[in-house]
């Protein structure tokens, strides 16, 4: 899978969690929790979405490595 494919999948999962946000406006390096006002529940639903879509399990300890969309894409790319 290319980085772009991973990025669009991750974005898809994110929109599923917070349907009211606009996918285009999300900068790649922004802190998602801050920008999109995500709480721990939202993050968990996002992580569960990624697992269902790509089969990648992200343990709670690694939440720090998926703060921005860019980090998340790299993290997932290394494991898919």
């Amino acid at each position, binding site marked *: 899978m290319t980085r772009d494919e991973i990025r669009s999948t991750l974005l898809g999962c994110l929109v599923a*969690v*917070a*349907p*009211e*946000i606009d996918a285009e406006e999300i900068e790649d390096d922004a802190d998602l929790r801050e920008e*999109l*006002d995500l*709480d*721990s*529940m939202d993050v*968990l*639903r996002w*992580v*569960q979405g990624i*697992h*269902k879509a790509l089969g990648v*399990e*992200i*343990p*709670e300890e690694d939440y720090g490595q998926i703060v921005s969309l860019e980090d998340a894409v790299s993290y997932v790319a290394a494991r898919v």
Partner: protein
Amino acid sequence: MAEFVMPSLGADMSAGVLAKWRVALGDRVAKGDIIAEVETDKGLIEVEVFEAGVVESFLVQEGEKVPVGTVLAEIQTAPASAPAPVSAPVSAPGSIISAGASDLVLDGPLASPAVRRRAHELDVSLPSVRGTGEHGRITLDDLVGVGQRARSAPGARVRISPYARRVAMERGIDISRLSGSGPGGAIQASDVLSVTAHPASAAVSPAERMQRAIAAAMTRANDEIPHYYVEQSIDMANAIAWLRETNASVSVSERLVSGVLVLRAVALALRKHKSLNATWQGPEPVPSAEIHVGLAVSLRGGGLVAPALRNTDQGSLGELMVRMTDLVGRARAGTLRSSEMTSATITLTSLGERGVESVTPIIFPPQVAIVGCGATVERPWVVEGKVVPRPIMRVTLGADHRVSNGHQGSRFLTALDRLLQEPEKL
């Protein structure tokens, strides 16, 4: 062989008594001959036979009462006259629904206004109920087993005109708090419209309408409800450790968040503090036998909803987590059911993740209490005489002083604290 049957002798005749045979076995009979006499309400009627032949056998004795159509005798027909082919008696063309002609097309299940009102009160959708009355009509008993929101205690029924009730529902106004200017104190539309005191403006967007409804509810709650507040700082160390350990051993789909622990703890604590788990019905605060904790969910587009998680104290933590995830998702997607919006018996609002340390929340009418949780923050904490860092969460209870008091509130918070120290039991 032809059959001689008990004839129908009148529109409303269903049976007849064979009074007398006018022929004997072996007699030859011609078409139209009188073969028997039948006793009816109007007296004895001579009955003719429609086939020529010889009387073969009598199947019914004199004096016996038999339904119309019963075979009375068998006639050995002479070969010549084959009777015209007549099919079995045709009953009326399908049972015509006995309803008046004008309402032949039944729209929705049959139910009387009283049943419909009861269903509305129990928040039951009629099509989902199997009616046991005539033509599938739904009766009051049919609703007994189905009540989703069992009324814990029969609240005083609100006398309100249908139009006023409709306006109140559209504007999210709780009718149990209104006083009526209509006959016998019944609530009229004017009573409802005067509450929001703003003109029925032109097109109002749903979000705007919701905001206005929240504003109205909050204003009234704040003005009318005498809140008291008590606060407790709770050591979350055990809870967090147990959570990390549990999550490490399960797949991501079964992972829990700390919020579900607090939610379950609040529910369990309420079991012994009924006065906080109640709602106003008309002039009376009515404790609820079931515990449905409303979860405050702020919507990104603005607006706040607190849908209820039914029977929050029941089922495994895993199940509660699934239900919670589903509820939050649907709240965000705006696909909550109306029942979920109105069935909460208390509300929990967690703003910790937004970084604030404590919350002083306003009660959601018609409830009588609300629990607010702040952020879980590392704090110096004295344990067995030594100061150690501990993750501390400040929890505030806001409650209606007309229904409970500070003492009861404090005991609830200490119970909540104790429950959170043994997360594995939640």
